[in-house]
């Protein structure tokens, strides 16, 4: 046999050859340690964590190297929100039995892998210590605030619930204390402190068992608040019925300050509606009347202007028609005058054609006399008059001679050329051709 303590061979007298330990005694101690470990395991499996801690501590007193007992103890502390205490047990365990075969090594790795979690655990410890300090110093309000904050973030923290329950008890708020203790009993079924507090509050053992039973429905992973107390539909219904029996319509309602802020929106809405109505009924009609009156005046002004314009237009139209009439009359007169002129010209030509023209001959003879008398200007006028009456070679001949006498050779030449072109067989041709040649 080998010594359970050092591994050396055991002598026949039952003592270790090296350390001198009594084998039977050690075996008995180790066996007892395992027994308490089993007890602790059983208690932990039914969430009797306080009982499990007691059993496991005993197991470690018989054998401090009971790895399973130490690991389980660490786990229970961890479950109750005391992470550092749990880590401590696992570190000691891993020190006794290093290597992957020890679960504590895995637990430590998992916790260390999440640095935030470790930091959170540290913060939790610090905050709880602060709350405890506040409670001890009498600043209970601060302790309340701190604990509520802690429990909202760490709903498994048994110590926190117990301190909160104690504060509520001191405060006389038994309902809230009971609620916090229910949570404790949900996590740690036989927490002795919680049971003692409940007993001190006057809760009978029977009721405590009921509370334990009902606490099973609490979701311990949910954040703790003072209000979230679970009640089944039936419980709520029965509770309401009991409350109604206790207070049968005698209550007149509790005094409550009216929260005016809630009605602000209503006030604003009513104000807006009244404003719109006032505008609609009082201001709008006056404005409309003013606008209509102005519109009517404008219409009248425009009508007057239009009528004036119409009068002007009709006057102008009359004028135009009068002028058109006058124009027509004038045209008619012109036509008549033209017709008269035409008739006169026709009559004159008829006269010229049919009546023997003695005036031409007389005028030509007078012109010849004037040339002879060297009165060339007179001769030119006479010839022109004669040519107006009738064109003829004699008139042109005398006219040319008169221009020559008057030293106007250009015009004289023109007169002679007329004879040459129009009267080539004239008796004056011989005389003027010599001149034209010159």
């Amino acid at each position, binding site marked *: 046999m080998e010594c359970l*303590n050092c591994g050396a061979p055991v002598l026949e007298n039952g003592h270790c050859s090296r*350390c*001198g*330990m*009594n084998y039977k*005694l*050690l075996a008995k*101690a180790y066996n007892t*340690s395992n027994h308490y470990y089993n007890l602790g395991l059983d208690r932990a499996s039914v969430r009797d964590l306080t009982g499990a801690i007691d059993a496991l501590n005993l197991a*470690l*007193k*018989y*054998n*401090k*190297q009971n790895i399973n007992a130490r690991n389980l103890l660490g786990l229970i502390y961890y479950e109750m929100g*005391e992470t*550092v*205490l749990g*880590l*401590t047990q696992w*570190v*000691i365990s891993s020190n006794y039995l290093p290597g992957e075969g020890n679960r504590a090594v895995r637990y430590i790795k998992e916790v260390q892998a999440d640095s935030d979690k*470790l930091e959170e*655990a*540290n913060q*939790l*410890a*610090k905050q*709880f*210590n602060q709350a*405890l300090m506040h*409670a*001890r110093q009498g600043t209970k309000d601060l302790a309340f605030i701190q604990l509520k904050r802690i429990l909202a973030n760490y709903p498994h923290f048994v*110590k926190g619930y*117990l*301190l909160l329950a*104690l504060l509520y*008890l*001191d405060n006389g708020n038994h309902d809230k204390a009971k609620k916090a203790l229910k949570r404790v009993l949900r996590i740690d079924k036989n927490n002795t402190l919680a049971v003692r*507090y409940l007993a*001190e509050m006057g809760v009978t053992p029977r009721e405590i068992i009921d509370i334990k039973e009902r606490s099973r429905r609490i979701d311990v992973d949910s954040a703790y608040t003072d209000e979230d107390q679970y009640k089944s539909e039936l419980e709520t219904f029965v509770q309401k019925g009991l409350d109604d029996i206790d207070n049968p319509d005698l209550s007149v309602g509790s005094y409550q300050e009216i929260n005016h802020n809630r009605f602000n929106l209503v006030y604003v809405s009513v104000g807006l509606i009244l404003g719109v109505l006032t505008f609609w009924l009082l201001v709008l009609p006056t404005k409309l009347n003013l606008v209509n009156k102005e519109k009517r005046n404008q219409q009248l002004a425009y009508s007057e202007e239009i009528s004036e314009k119409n009068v002007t237009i009709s006057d102008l139209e009359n004028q135009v028609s009068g002028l058109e009439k006058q124009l027509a009359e004038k045209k008619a007169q012109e036509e008549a005058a033209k017709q008269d002129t035409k008739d006169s010209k026709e009559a004159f030509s008829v006269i010229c054609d049919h009546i023997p023209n003695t005036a031409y001959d007389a005028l030509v003879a007078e012109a010849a006399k004037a040339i002879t008398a060297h009165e060339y200007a007179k001769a030119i006028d006479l010839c022109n008059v004669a040519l107006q009456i009738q064109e003829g070679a004699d008139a042109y001949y005398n006219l040319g001679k008169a221009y020559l006498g008057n030293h106007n050779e250009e015009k004289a030449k023109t007169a002679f050329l007329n004879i040459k072109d129009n009267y080539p067989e004239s008796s004056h041709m011989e005389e003027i051709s010599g001149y034209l040649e010159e």
Partner: protein
Amino acid sequence: MINFDEEVRKFKPCLEVSQAEDAIYENDVKDITDVLEEMLLQLNQREK
């Protein structure tokens, strides 16, 4: 009746991470083996 001050005094502060090392070294729980070792040591000293 619960005495608040007395009860509060029973609450122990939580261990912080910085205190973990000290806690590990101070965790010197004696088990049966330690007790037996001490007894043997004392016996041996007496015999001497």
